[in-house]
């Protein structure tokens, strides 16, 4: 069942952590703007320098779950008719999804701080 709107106000983002890396990457890609499936795959691949290559199965398994949890929703905004393909669906990050992704980023940041504190990581942050 598709969940596009979710009464997310009372939900605690921390309850959804940790996210899988693939899930986080998908949410991160959508934070930049609404995208269709193939664009998400390409965005994640380029953002990770080709380290994370999502398969269609992995992507749509994640999309289904994020839709069900109300973290993403189908976007009503579509490109101009000339560039559009009716078979594509566009997805957007919901407010709740953004809160969860932020919480995950903070969690990861905390972990990195710990790694620096015990000298597991040295030098400046990588760009």
């Amino acid at each position, binding site marked *: 069942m598709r969940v596009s709107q979710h009464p997310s106000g009372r939900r605690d983002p921390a309850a959804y952590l940790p996210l899988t890396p693939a899930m986080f990457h998908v949410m991160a890609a959508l934070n930049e703007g609404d995208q269709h*499936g193939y664009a998400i795959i390409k965005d994640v691949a380029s953002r990770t320098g080709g380290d994370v290559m999502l398969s*269609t199965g992995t992507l749509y398994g994640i*999309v289904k779950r994020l839709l069900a949890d109300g973290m993403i929703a189908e976007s009503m905004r579509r490109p101009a008719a000339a560039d559009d393909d009716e*078979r594509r669906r566009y997805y957007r990050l919901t407010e709740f999804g953004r809160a969860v992704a932020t919480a995950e980023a903070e969690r990861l940041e905390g972990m990195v701080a710990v790694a620096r504190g015990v000298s597991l990581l040295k030098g400046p942050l990588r760009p």
Partner: protein
Amino acid sequence: MTSDRPPSPGRRLFRALLRLLPAEFRGDFGAEMSQVFEDQRRDAAAAGPVAVTSLWARTVGGVVALAPREHGAILARDAAFGLRVMRRNPGTTLAAILTMALGIGANTAMFSVVNAVLLGLPFKDQDRVFRLATESKQGRQPPALTASALGNWQNTPGFEAVAGFWSEGRVVTGSEVERVGVECVSPSLFRVLGVSPAIGRVFGDTDDRAGAAPVIVLSHEFWSGRLGADPSIVGRTITMNDVPVTVLGVMPPAFGGPFARARVAGWAPLEPLLAKSRASGRLADPMVNVFAKLRPGVSVQAAIAPLEATLRVLAPEDPSARMVAIPIAEQITGDVRPMLIALWGATAFVLLIGAANIAGLLFGRAETRRHEMAVRLALGSARARIVRQLLTESVLLCLIGGLAGVVMAAWGLHVIVAMLPGGMPGADRISLDGRVLAVSVTVSLATGLLFGLWPALQASSVAPSFSWGGRAATPAPSRGSARSVLVAAEVALSLALLVGAGLVVKTFFHLRPASPGFDPSGKIVVGVALPAARYSSEVMRLAFYDELAGRLGATHGVAGVSAASVLPLSGFGDFARFTREDADPSAKPARVFASTVTANFFSEMSIAVVQGRAFSESDRADGQPVVIVNQVLARSVGATGRGVLGTRLVVIDDTSGTATRTIVGIVGDTRIMGGVVAPRPQMYLPFAQTSGFSRQFVLRVTQPIGTMAPVLRQAIRSLDPRLPTGSITAMTDDVDSTVAGWRFAAILMGGFAVLAIVLAAVGLLAVVAGSVNDRTREIGVRIALGAQAGDVLRTVLSRALVSTTAGLAAGIGLALGTTQFLSDWLVDVSPFDGRTFVLASLAMTLVAVIASYIPARRALRVDPIRALRTE
């Protein structure tokens, strides 16, 4: 954007890959995934073949990883929903679970027995292991082989190994004197059977020579029982027949030799025994059992063909004899196989009836949920999705029932094992092991799928509708007929099972009183065997037996003592050969059972003296040699028309040699081979004129065996403390044990038949009750219009009666087709016994009428006003 071009192979492959995902997921994302994959493929193709290969690998991996997760999630959801549905209908659910539990329970328990006895032989490559025998008009016999011939056979090219086998009794002394069975075998037997010792080693060719130091490999049972599982046993000696024998090793627990005997003390080399017997001149031409392992890829016929030639040399007197190779599994389990398979088949019938009941219940439930299905279809659910969810429910129901059944089986197995006829090979291995549990789970699962499918298809075949109105105006058109077919099938299966059970029970009752030819009540059998080393002369043996008879007779509670070398029902016998003294000198001596008995044996055993006299004290060693024959033998002796009494026979027997004996009496027949086999020609010789090493005393007692046994053992020990006391049994038990197999089968078959009938009756009851429910308004209107009770009953019973009649007809057909599988163990009862068929049909009809009438009466109590008001 569609294209008329046929899809490319890559696209077709991707679509095929998507079929791994649930239909629901494909419906939501399939088209989108295809589009994304097309985009990826286009870009990868531009980048080169490495990118294309890597894309395919990633894509296949992703879908294969996603599919089980998605299916699992749906399954969990459907199962949770199914459990809620079950909780809402506790009565129906409980009935279904109980039905399934009974079917699976009976099936699991019987399969445990089949698994241990028929499938659990502890031999490696058992398909290639055979017992070699000769087959002639006399039936199957081990080939008559001398040791040298066995040596030749061991080099037969078609066989990997050939081994000789001979069993003998030995007396073990030590803390306790005991007579045990030892199997004397060629060293190659262990290779033939593919078994290794649990500890120590087996013997080799150097041990298997005349004059070699005596050695033995012990059975696990003897080692753990008698020797307390002494871990340092290897290399130590035990005393057998007053000779120290070195223990070389101990075999694993499940191993009982090539005949899978439960009570074997161990295995010793064959050759020293053959040499001893040749030297004594007693058994110059011994009969050796032969076991052989076929080389891989060689046919049995090709392997035994060269042996036919040696057979012609060894046994030239019987040109009809030919070699046969009996598979080891058939050799060991051949007797019980048909019975166990038939019993297992009976439980399959019970399971099918139970499953049909469950299908009936599911049809009933489908009817009450037609609106739920119509609304779900109207809301866009796929029919396949609904079928899948209903199947999950039926599988869940069957799995829970199956689990309860396994618990029931664990309990029932104790009862079955306790009832097993003695000596069933592998009985000690019977348990609910992994294979049994796997089969039970698979059967439960398959039942849930197969018997849930039809009702699920039916339930989902409603028209989509949002109407939540009251009852459906009409029941699904084919639901009633589906349930009628199920009930007819249940009646048919029950009737076939009832007929089968009837035939087995009839055989049992036929055998039970089958006069064994003597009166076993109030008698105890005491077996005594004298070791040849210490009782070498006949004088010593006779003196011992006379003294022992006196002491046993003087024991409190003993009213009479008689004895015989072999008792009726023992299943084996000593043989003697004879010719009439006045016969043609070239006539071949006939071979008959011979038993040596005391003078009072016939009166003590209540065996009738038909003509002439019994033995008397005057038949002494120095008197006229005499013989008494049974009626079967008398008929063949007297076949020439001359009188039997007074006829002189030249009798050759193993212990007393050749003597010309006069027939002084004819006695009634006894069943020497057990309760099933017709009496055989038999002669009796007086103990005073021929003795033997073993003797069975028959004591007529006034007290129960429990109190007598210790006193009798003491009496034997007081005469010779080194003598094994052998077995002390009640003769009625011995008689019972000859029909134990039939009793076991009769009780189980009867039990399964009763179970089947109860389940079928429940099924019938549910159908008629359903029919009454469906037609309450119609019945109400008819009663309001003045219909009579008979008319109303006819209305609601007609469908049940048609089902029952069809079921009875099919059941008779089914029984005719299946009872022939019982013919192997029906004795003097035809598998098509008319009376059994008629009685079973009547009983089934009666049950069907009662099961239909009970719910049908409810129709008579329908209140027309209320029925019409619900309209």
